[in-house]
């Protein structure tokens, strides 16, 4: 390789290298370093094993539970929509997608704050209820409110990969199934569902992982009453001022991310379920 070519290659890949090193590699190394050392700089696994302490384990359990529930709800909402989108005409399809993607253009914090206004004791929903002569409901600061917020915020991440993978299923495949005597249900269960597994896996991870690690939603819609593992980590990095413990617990969360990546690699070999 000539010197010139080398220089050109370096200048082209430079920004990317800079980004990867600055945005991923250095933070990751720092997290590992903080997570595996004690205050005096000596090596320790205590920060990682601290996940077993009652407070942490409970927070992790709650986070797993809430994110699992919201992932299931997201799937139940998104799958029928993807089937509908598959069949819709171009214009209708574009419009439905637009409606679901539109909120994503607004700031995520702002959208969550809007839910606060809706669910608050003196908020919009309770205002309508009292106006109709019905008793007020306790909506905000409950597990339900948090799951609601997770579903609302992460639903587009389930819809996109499902839609993507399903719109690629050829009509002839379904026609063939019907020719061979399959009922509508059988087409759904035996053809559409198995063929969209890559999209499902990718959608599930894209909802599950961010829901598992969120602390903003639980803070804003949980009124500080519900403490997820994301809140623990946030606390350690801010008020708790214990970066070692925060990084150690983040490493535990990394395990979940790695598991998800392994899942995607196994089921979505061709990258069909990718967002774009």
């Amino acid at each position, binding site marked *: 390789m000539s010197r010139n070519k080398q220089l050109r290659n370096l200048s082209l890949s430079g920004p990317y*290298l*800079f980004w990867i*090193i*600055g945005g991923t590699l*250095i933070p990751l190394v720092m997290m590992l370093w903080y997570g595996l050392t004690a205050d005096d700089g000596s090596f320790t696994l205590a920060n990682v094993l601290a996940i077993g*302490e*009652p*407070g*942490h384990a*409970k*927070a992790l359990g*709650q986070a797993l539970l809430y994110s699992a529930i919201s992932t299931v709800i997201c799937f139940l909402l998104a799958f029928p929509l993807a089937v509908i989108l598959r069949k819709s005409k171009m214009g209708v399809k574009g419009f439905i997608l637009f409606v679901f993607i539109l909120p994503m253009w607004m700031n995520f914090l702002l959208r969550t704050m809007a839910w606060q206004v809706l669910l*608050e*004791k*003196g*908020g919009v929903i309770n205002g309508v209820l009292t106006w109709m002569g019905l008793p007020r409901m*306790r909506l905000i*600061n409950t597990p339900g409110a948090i799951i609601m917020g997770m579903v609302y915020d992460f639903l587009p991440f389930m819809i996109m990969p499902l839609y993507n993978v399903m719109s690629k299923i050829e009509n002839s495949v379904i026609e063939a199934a019907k020719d061979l005597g399959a009922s509508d249900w059988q087409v759904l269960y035996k053809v559409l569902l198995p063929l969209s597994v890559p999209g499902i896996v990718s959608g599930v991870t894209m909802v599950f992982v961010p829901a598992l690690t969120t602390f903003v939603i639980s803070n804003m819609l949980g*009124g*500080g*009453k519900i*403490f997820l593992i994301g*809140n*623990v980590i946030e*606390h350690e990095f801010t*008020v*708790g001022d*214990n970066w070692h413990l925060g990084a150690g617990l983040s490493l535990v969360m990394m395990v979940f991310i790695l598991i998800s990546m392994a899942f995607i690699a196994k089921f979505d070999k061709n990258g069909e379920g990718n967002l774009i």
Partner: protein
Amino acid sequence: MRKRFFVFLLIFSLFMCACGADDGGDQPEVPAGSNVVYVYNYGDYIDPDIIDMFEEETGIKVIYDTFDTNEEMYPIISSGSVRYDVVCPSEYMVEKMLANGLLAEIDLDNVPNFQYITESCRQFAESYDPGNKHSIPYTWGTVGIMYDTDYIEEGSITKWSDLWKEEYRDEVMMMDSLRDIYMVALKQLGYSANTTNEQELREATDLLIAQKDLVYKYATDAIRDFLLNESASIGVIYSGEVLYCQEEDDSLVYVLPEEGSNVWFDSWVIPANCRNKENAEAWINFMCRPEIAFKTFEYIYYATPNQGAIEMIEEEYPEFMDNMALFPDEEALAKCEIYHYLGSEADQMYNRYWKEFKAY
């Protein structure tokens, strides 16, 4: 290849360090020996007219900078990157600065107006600044309960344990900060808010867990807004917020609970590396003058430690005299405590119990 990668990494990190290091305050250079005083105070914590009055009267030029948190101010003073003559930190930060030798002794002969500081404030200040030699209180306040008399009968809440009553389910908002919420539980149990006894902390944690189902929300600054928009009717709040809230909604009442509470101070101190100590003392003396302390009160609405100013408030605003946010009940005040730094081991213990309570 590997070698080149490391060189790259090194250059990159150096670049990042250079970016990070360049945010120390820039101070307009005034030749040493000229008549100036560098003041470093909380943002929006003084009537701007007072600065002009001081300059006019003494001929000392004031260079006034502000900070938002004690934590932001501390490294600037300790690194000596900018040398201020007079700073206004909170009491726990005074304690820390004192322990690290960052404060100069104030010559009280140059601050005769110190005589106006009330006896009870001097006593509290003794606990973080023995002998009142390094700090002079500017404002002070307590943590208490504010409730809405439109929904709750006036006088029915007088102590912390009232917040555990079943009848106030979904009405109570607690402070979402570790020291403040443990203070509420510890004081109710009759323990010190600065305890390092694990058994007492265990009991306080259980008490907080027992209350959790009754609480509407744990929040900090938002409590004020939720009381004002009537989402809930009882909230734990800093006394400094009270007059603002009452101006918006006069049905709000503040009480300092019988069991005692936390009391905090913001005080003037002189950093050891100051350049114009006498000017700094002139500034502090000026701020302690009753008329000026009164003017400060009228602007920021925080309780004043100045006896002269208190007498002027009595005259001008008699309606404030029974306001517990400004003039708390002596008996309850006697049970109040300053927060002390407890050491990193105790900090971690608090953190552990706090997380258990939060995750419950």
